[in-house]
């Protein structure tokens, strides 16, 4: 099939490389990633790669990797995984740097955040009606 986008947007190949790098970070965020290697894989100089990545996603690759890790940490914490295990599971080597970054982003320590979310989850199970606008609950006969 002819690539009509490539004909319209000659620089689409640059986007594709940046997107591939982003998807690579998404998939391998828990590993020790060398962003210079990702730039090489994407056939860019490191500087060029960082500039294009930031122009596309509003964050440097490193900032983006940290955001992905914290998002993943939130998912694991919600599942009840202990903070220490979460820290290593998302690719951090040190609890203190993980906790500091987590707190900077969410305003709460990982354990306080986890406690709040687990409480909310428990309430969602015991009193689900509290989480549903009444009109919808009534319309569904709940």
């Amino acid at each position, binding site marked *: 099939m002819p690539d009509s986008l490539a004909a319209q947007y000659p620089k689409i190949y640059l986007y594709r490389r940046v*997107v*591939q790098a982003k998807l690579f970070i998404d998939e391998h965020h828990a590993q020790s990633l060398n962003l210079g290697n990702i730039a090489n894989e994407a056939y860019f100089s490191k500087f060029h790669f960082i500039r294009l990545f930031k122009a596309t996603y509003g964050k440097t690759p490193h900032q983006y990797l940290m955001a992905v890790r914290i998002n993943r940490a939130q998912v694991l914490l919600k599942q009840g995984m202990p903070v220490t295990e979460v820290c290593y599971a998302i690719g951090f080597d040190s609890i203190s740097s993980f906790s500091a970054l987590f707190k900077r982003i969410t305003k709460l320590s990982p354990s306080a955040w986890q406690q709040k979310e687990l409480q909310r989850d428990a309430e*969602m199970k015991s009193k689900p009606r509290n989480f*549903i606008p009444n009109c*919808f609950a009534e*319309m*569904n*006969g*709940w």
Partner: protein
Amino acid sequence: MITKLNHVSIFVLDQDSAYDFYVNKLGFKVHTDASMGPGMRWLTVTPPEQPELEISLMAIAEGMMFKAEAAEQMRNLVSKGTFGFGVFECNDLLATYEELKAKGVEFTKEPTREFYGFEALFKDDSGNWFSLGEKAK
């Protein structure tokens, strides 16, 4: 005076599949996932940068909201792509298009420069369609 929209509903054919589409493909966050009993689930997601707007993924099921015939008609209409539920925004349309395509999202219109802006159209896993526009730079 009305100040905000905080809930909006999208009717879906299957909530598990919709969860996968909106969370794993589009990257939305789960806001509330509450079970009201077998087959009764209140599931809402939020766009990553709009945590205050809950999108309720409503199952089309026979019940108080839909009689059996109405549910069947609604399922037909949704799966045929009758309903367009809104316009999503992204910072970079070409990059978002490439990413969603790579994740298997079906587009019915490639990114196109229109007089009103740069847009593409895609469908969710049920058949609901959305416009995807690029934020003005």
